């Protein structure tokens, strides 16, 4: 399998729509015979990105949308999530693992994205995130 294949969608900003999309992603990725570890980490990073886009980007406004694209080829998965919000200071997200921040809810999503994916890049003032997960076939 050499050609890139992609799954794309525009989600209404309602958190309850996330699980259904994640299920589509799981089914889409079945064809790539990836390890359980890769599938788990990809799904989790994607959920965190979508939750952040809806909750913090679009402020849970159901009239706004989150655009998401997941592309996969022989050695990587590329995820792009874009919200319609005003952006955020992605250069200064607090480390949620410090003692001072351990009980704060904010920052955990971005932290997980950065630690589970091989690359995380924020663009467009933080309204757009591109994450890449590289792999060897299982």
């Amino acid at each position, binding site marked *: 399998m050499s050609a890139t294949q992609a799954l794309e969608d525009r989600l209404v900003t309602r958190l309850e729509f*996330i*699980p259904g999309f994640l299920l589509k992603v799981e089914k889409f990725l079945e064809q790539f015979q990836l390890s359980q570890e890769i599938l*788990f980490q990809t799904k989790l990073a994607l959920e*965190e990105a979508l939750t952040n886009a809806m909750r913090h980007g679009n402020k849970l406004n159901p009239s706004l949308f989150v655009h998401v694209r997941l592309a996969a080829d022989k050695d990587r998965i590329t995820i792009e999530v874009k919200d319609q919000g005003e952006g955020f200071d992605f250069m200064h997200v607090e480390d949620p693992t410090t003692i001072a921040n351990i009980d704060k809810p904010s920052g955990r*999503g971005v*932290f*997980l994205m950065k630690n589970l994916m091989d690359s995380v890049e924020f663009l467009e003032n933080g309204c757009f995130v591109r994450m890449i997960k590289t792999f060897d076939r299982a």
Partner: protein
Amino acid sequence: MPLKIAVHEKEKGIFVVAPSGEIDTETYKIFEKEVGVILARATAIIFEFKDMCYISSMGLGAIFRIKQAMEQKNGTIMLVNIQPNIQKVFEVMKILPDNMFASLEEADEYLDSFLDGVQKGQINPKPPKSTS
């Protein structure tokens, strides 16, 4: 995957909570609500995670809040049989390294020691952090 939660009182004040499925952005509320029902009566909560296959940051937050609530009243929580992928998430987030056990037997040993410490006054409630 939907979330099912089995709760039973192993002995007085010691509860086993066994979620089956995924604790995600939607289902963490169900998880937190089910545990909330037993919180006031619990001295210790053992989370049996062998059938929990996924957790997101919202689920981690729920577990952390439960831990804090238990510690504020001199209680404790234990996480048992965590699947490897989820174990990695806890390790990345540096959450609860001292509360994770590979088996119910190990958790029981810790629990005996903990309850002994509470009885002897060696373990005190942890007050909530100041938000000022």
